């Protein structure tokens, strides 16, 4: 990896903000089976630049399987996942070589895990965690790396003086914010999130949601958020996809799906939420 690659995609970042006339991600007929059991079946959708899509459903509905197939963590059995790469336009990430896919994984894609400890290096300082993706794409100036790490810690509301502390010394909410900083520092275009607010206190959740909303807007990010929390998708997602038993039962504008659900399962899901 050379410094040149790094410089190139730093410049490219500005291009994200102007919309392109084609989808960023096109999913066609995606299926994943675990033996005879269906993980997810025949999922198709387009995600456009700047769009945030929520995937909801109960545990075991296949939403996490789908997310892992999209992010290249699992190999689907059938289907295509086309991503609009900076260099070569639409490419099927299922069939591309592993180096290319992993390169996407640390440049244009980001993955926010439910448990921050899965997405952070717990024995590395906060600054090192944020800097890793920069160094992975060729950054070799300690001062610059540190400056950008401090900038990002600030954006996720972590005090600069915590830069040399390890995440083990952080609260759950701080760890999750650090994970987000670590993921977004290289200016990705597509963020996958798996239950990003799961396991956090309600007050901490609100802060995180606000932060994510701001970052999505400022960076023009596209995102796919898997969650079972309908309040989270109402606040974050433009669009919703409802899954049941590995299949998509309903899609649409988030508030439309939640306020006027068409499918019986969605109606059940929405009416099961306790009103506060």
């Amino acid at each position, binding site marked *: 990896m050379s410094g040149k690659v790094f410089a190139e995609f730093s410049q490219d970042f500005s291009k994200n903000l102007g919309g392109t006339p084609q989808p960023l991600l096109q999913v066609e007929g995606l299926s994943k089976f675990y033996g005879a059991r269906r993980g997810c079946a025949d999922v198709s959708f387009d995600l*456009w630049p700047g*769009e945030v899509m929520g995937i909801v459903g109960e545990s075991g509905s296949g939403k996490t399987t789908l997310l892992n197939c999209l992010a290249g963590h699992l190999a689907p059995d059938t289907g295509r996942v086309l991503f609009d790469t900076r260099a070569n336009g639409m490419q099927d990430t299922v069939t591309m070589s592993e180096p290319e896919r992993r390169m996407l994984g640390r440049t244009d894609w980001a993955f926010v895990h439910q448990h921050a400890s899965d997405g952070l290096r717990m024995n590395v300082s906060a600054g090192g965690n944020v800097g890793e993706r920069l160094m992975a794409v060729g950054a070799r100036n300690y001062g610059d790396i540190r400056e950008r790490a401090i900038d990002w810690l600030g954006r996720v509301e972590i005090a600069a003086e915590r830069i040399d502390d390890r995440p083990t010394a952080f609260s759950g909410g701080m760890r999750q914010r650090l994970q987000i900083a670590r993921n977004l520092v290289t200016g990705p275009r597509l963020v996958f999130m798996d239950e990003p607010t799961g396991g956090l206190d309600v*007050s901490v959740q*609100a*802060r995180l*949601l*606000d932060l994510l*909303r701001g970052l999505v*807007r400022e960076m023009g990010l596209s995102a796919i958020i898997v969650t079972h929390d309908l309040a989270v998708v*109402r*606040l974050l997602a*433009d*669009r919703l996809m409802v899954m049941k038993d590995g299949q998509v039962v309903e899609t*649409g*504008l*988030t*508030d*439309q799906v939640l*306020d*006027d659900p*068409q*499918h*019986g399962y969605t*109606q*059940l899901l929405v*009416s099961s939420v306790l009103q506060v």
Partner: protein
Amino acid sequence: MIQIENLSKTFTLHNQGSADIPVLTGASFSVAPGECVALTGPSGAGKSTLMRLIYGNYLAASGHIRIGHVDVAQAEPRQIIALRRETLGYVSQFLRVVPRVPTREVVAEPLLALGTPREEAIARADALLARLNLPERLWSLSPTTFSGGEQQRVNIARGFVHPYPALLLDEPTASLDAGNREVVLSLVEEAKARGAAIIGIFHDEAARDRLCDRQVDVGVFTPPRAA
């Protein structure tokens, strides 16, 4: 600007014996730029349902809802989102925001979403909040704990901070005192004057008479109650 054509809506309750409840049928009317149209009819006639259909919040069963170049009844989610961001404003009776976000940010958000520079967006939000007489000490607080009247004014500020070419107003003057009611009425008049097409529900008859050029009786579109 807004054209409703043969619009109908039916709710199907799958978990209650798949009961079909038709609520609206054959609704047709249009609103020109600079025109304000009031939806009237008794409670339960479907005024709010119609508003929500126009905003894309409810899914139309059939018919067309044309706003500018977009048919909300058939548009992709991203087209509706773009429409809401640029063209179609909505002042609802309820405020739904992320907890802990300061009021001035809530009001400035539609501008930020359009890419307005932050300083300018905040300045315009502040100006509108001041005009609506919301005490300045509240601007940096989240509106979630505000009184009904205060929340209503935050909602109005949010709906008027960007000059939307089309506006939906759901009881914009409810729970406001005389002074603030007057501010809202003049905001609506200014919007009309700049050419916005407006559809509103007003229980406040005086406000309706002052603002609206025409009335559309939603009761006409109510389907006969099937047994």
